[in-house]
C-alpha cells in the first residue's frame, strides 16, 4: 500500500493502534445508541487491518522526561497477540450488538485499546500505563451489572489489578536503576526488580494462589462483558511473560500446578460461567508451561494456544451467555435439556467444547499438542504427565459438563427461545474460526513467532488423543450411570478468596479490637499522667480545664514548644 494512493489510511498506520480505540471510545460516549454497535464492530476491524499491514520494527520512539519510550514495537510475537485481540474485539462487540449500555460499550473499546497498546509497548513505562488502563476499563464491565454483589466484586477485582500495576511500576523503577534501561525485553529473575515485575505479571496471569480474582470477577460481569473480559487481561499477561520471562524454569512448575488444580474446582462448581473461569485458569497453565520451557516450539505453542484459546473460550462464554440471556440463570442446577429449543446454540457450544478438549479437526488439538510435544522433547516427564492429565480433565468440565448439563441431561422443563440472531452470528463466526484452525493449522502456524515445522495430524497423535478423550468420556458415562459423578449442587466453593473475604476481615477485626483496647488503655494512662502534670499549673492560674481539651491555639503553641525543644536537643547533641 503506497502512501500516495491511500493517504488517509497511511496516516492511520502512523498512529499507535491503541490510539484508534481511545477517540473511538470518546465517539461512542456521544453517539446515539443506534450508531454505537456499528462503531464498536467497525473500529476493531479497522484496527485489525492496521495490525495486519504494519511493518515490523520499533515504529514510535518517544522521549519523555528523559525516558526513552517506545509506543509501537511490532514483531511477530506482538503482532499475533494484537491480531487476535482485534479479532475478538470485533466478535465480542458483534455478540453485544443488542447492547444499549453506553458505559459497557465505552469500557469495551477502551479495554481492547489498552490491551493492544500494552502488547505493542516496547518499554516498561508504556506497558505500565496500558496495563493499568486495562484494569480500570475492564472493571466497568463488572460494575455494569449494577448489583451490589457486582460492585463489591468489581472493587476486589480493581484492587488486585491495580496492585499488579503498582508492582509493575515499582519493578520498572528498580529495573531502571539497575540496568539504566526501560526496554521491555527478556529479563532474568534474580533481582528485586525482576521479581516485582514477575509478580505483577503473575497476578494478571492468575498464578496459583494469585488466581482468585479471575473466578471471582468473570461470573460477576455482564453477559457480554464476560466475553470481552475472558479475552484480554490474562492473555496480555501471557504475552508479557512470553516477552519478558521466556525460558524461566520456575514457570514450568507454576504452569503445571495451574493446569491441574482448577479442574477439581471446575468439576463441582455450579455456576457455569465460573466453571469456565476455572477452565480458563487451567488453559493458561498450558501456556505458562510453554513459556517456561522457552524453546522455539514451546513459545510457538504458547502463542498458538493463546490464539486458539481466546476463540473457543469466547465461544463457550458466548453460548453460556446466550443461555443466561434467555433464561436468566447460568446455574447447572437450574438448566438442562435446552437443546430442544436452542439447538443452534447447543451445536455451537459443542463446537467450543470439542475445541477446548482438543478433539482432532478442532483448534485446541493443533495448538495444545505443540506444548505437550515441547514438554516431551525437553524430557520433562512429570510436567508432561501433568499436562496429559489436565488434557483429559479439561474434557470433564469444559468438554462434557458445559454442553451436557446445560443442553442435554435431565430436562429442566425450560423452553427458552433460540439466542438472538446477532449472537448466533458472532458465535457462528467464532466457531468457524475454531474449525478453520483445526482443519488448516498452517494458516495459524504461519503467524507464529518462529518458523514452524510441526505436523499435528500424524496417526499416533490422532489415535492417542482420541483414546484419551473417548475413554475419558467412558469414565464419565460410567460415573453418571453408577451415581459416582459429583453431580449438580447449589452452593459456594471456598477458594483462596476465602482468605481475604472471610479470614482477613476476621483477623483484622480482632487485631483492631486489640489495638483499640491497648490504645484506649495507653491513652488513659498518658491522659492521667498529663492531667497530673498539668494539675499544678491549672490549680494556680488556669481557668477550669483550660489545657485539658484540644483547642487548636493552646495545643498548637504547645506543639511549637515541644518541637522547638526537640530541635534544640537534636541540634545541640549533634
Amino acid at each position, binding site marked *: 500500500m503506497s502512501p500516495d494512493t491511500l493517504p488517509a489510511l497511511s496516516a492511520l498506520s502512523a498512529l499507535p493502534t491503541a490510539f484508534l480505540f481511545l477517540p473511538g471510545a470518546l465517539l461512542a460516549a456521544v453517539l446515539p445508541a443506534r450508531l454505537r454497535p456499528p462503531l464498536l464492530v467497525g473500529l476493531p476491524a479497522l484496527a485489525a487491518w492496521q495490525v495486519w499491514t504494519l511493518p515490523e520494527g520499533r515504529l514510535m520512539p518517544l522521549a519523555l522526561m528523559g525516558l526513552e519510550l517506545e509506543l509501537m514495537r511490532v514483531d511477530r510475537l506482538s503482532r499475533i497477540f494484537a491480531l487476535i485481540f482485534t479479532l475478538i474485539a470485533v466478535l465480542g462487540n458483534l455478540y453485544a450488538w443488542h447492547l444499549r449500555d453506553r458505559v459497557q460499550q465505552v469500557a469495551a473499546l477502551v479495554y481492547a485499546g489498552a490491551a493492544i497498546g500494552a502488547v505493542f509497548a516496547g518499554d516498561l513505562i508504556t506497558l505500565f500505563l496500558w496495563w493499568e488502563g486495562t484494569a480500570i476499563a475492564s472493571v466497568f464491565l463488572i460494575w455494569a451489572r449494577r448489583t451490589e454483589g457486582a460492585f463489591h466484586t468489581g472493587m476486589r477485582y480493581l484492587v488486585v489489578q491495580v496492585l499488579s500495576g503498582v508492582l509493575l511500576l515499582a519493578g520498572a523503577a528498580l529495573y531502571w536503576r539497575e540496568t539504566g534501561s526501560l526496554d521491555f525485553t527478556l529479563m532474568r529473575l534474580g533481582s528485586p526488580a525482576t521479581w516485582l515485575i514477575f509478580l505483577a505479571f503473575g497476578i494478571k496471569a492468575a498464578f496459583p494462589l494469585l488466581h482468585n480474582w479471575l473466578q471471582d470477577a468473570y*461470573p460477576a460481569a455482564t453477559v457480554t462483558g464476560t466475553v470481552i473480559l475472558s479475552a484480554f487481561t490474562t492473555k496480555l499477561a501471557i504475552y508479557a511473560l512470553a516477552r519478558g520471562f521466556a525460558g524461566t524454569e520456575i514457570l514450568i512448575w507454576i504452569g503445571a500446578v495451574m493446569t491441574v488444580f482448577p479442574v477439581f474446582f471446575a468439576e463441582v462448581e455450579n455456576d457455569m460461567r465460573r466453571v469456565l473461569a476455572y477452565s480458563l485458569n487451567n488453559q493458561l497453565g498450558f501456556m505458562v508451561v510453554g513459556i517456561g520451557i522457552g524453546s522455539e516450539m514451546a513459545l510457538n505453542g504458547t502463542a498458538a494456544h493463546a490464539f486458539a484459546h481466546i476463540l473457543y473460550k469466547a465461544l463457550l462464554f458466548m453460548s453460556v451467555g446466550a443461555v443466561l440471556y434467555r433464561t436468566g440463570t447460568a446455574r447447572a442446577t437450574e438448566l438442562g435439556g435446552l437443546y430442544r429449543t436452542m439447538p443452534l446454540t447447543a451445536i455451537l457450544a459443542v463446537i467450543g467444547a470439542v475445541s477446548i478438549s482438543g478433539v482432532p479437526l478442532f483448534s485446541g488439538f493443533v495448538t495444545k499438542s505443540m506444548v505437550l510435544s515441547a514438554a516431551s522433547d525437553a524430557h520433562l516427564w512429570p510436567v508432561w504427565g501433568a499436562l496429559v492429565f489436565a488434557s483429559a480433565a479439561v*474434557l470433564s468440565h469444559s468438554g462434557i459438563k458445559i454442553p451436557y448439563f446445560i443442553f442435554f441431561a435431565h430436562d429442566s422443563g425450560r423452553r*427458552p427461545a433460540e439466542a438472538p440472531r446477532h449472537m448466533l452470528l458472532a458465535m457462528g463466526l467464532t466457531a468457524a474460526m475454531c474449525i478453520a484452525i483445526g482443519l488448516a493449522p498452517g494458516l495459524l502456524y504461519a503467524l507464529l513467532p518462529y518458523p514452524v515445522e510441526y505436523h499435528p495430524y500424524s*496417526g*499416533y497423535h490422532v489415535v492417542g488423543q482420541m483414546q484419551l478423550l*473417548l475413554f475419558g468420556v467412558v469414565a464419565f458415562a460410567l460415573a453418571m450411570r453408577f451415581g459416582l459423578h459429583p453431580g449438580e449442587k447449589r452452593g459456594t466453593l471456598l*477458594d483462596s478468596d476465602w482468605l481475604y473475604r472471610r479470614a482477613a476481615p476476621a483477623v483484622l477485626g480482632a487485631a483492631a479490637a486489640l489495638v483499640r483496647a491497648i490504645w484506649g488503655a495507653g491513652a488513659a494512662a498518658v491522659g492521667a499522667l498529663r492531667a497530673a502534670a498539668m494539675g499544678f499549673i491549672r490549680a494556680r492560674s488556669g481557668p477550669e480545664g483550660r489545657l485539658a481539651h484540644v483547642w487548636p491555639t493552646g495545643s498548637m503553641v504547645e506543639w511549637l514548644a515541644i518541637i522547638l525543644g526537640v530541635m534544640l536537643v537534636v541540634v545541640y547533641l549533634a
Partner: protein
Amino acid sequence: MSENLPPLARLLGLVERHFLKALAAGAALALGAGFAIDMHAKAPLESFGGFYALAGFVSLSTVLIVARLLRALLGRQEDYYGRSAVNAEQYPADQLEVRDREP
C-alpha cells in the same frame, strides 16, 4: 417427543439417544488402532498401545473422585459470603431478554 420441536433439535435428540452406542464403538476402534499403529513413543510409558486410553479413564475418574471430596471439604451455602454476594443474587432481569420459544 410429543413436542413440536425444530428439525435440528430432533436430530440432536437422536444423537443423545444413540450416544452411548456410538461412544462404545468409537472407544473400541481407538483402542484397537492404538495397538495397531506405531505410537512413536517418547515418554517411558507411551509405547503401550492403550496408554492414552488408560490415562483418559484414570484421569477422569480421579477428577470425579477428588472433586467429590473437595465439595465435602470446601462446599458452603450460596449465601456464605452474604446475601448480596454475586453467587447468591439473581442476574438483573432488566438487562436480559428472557423469553420462551413460541409453540
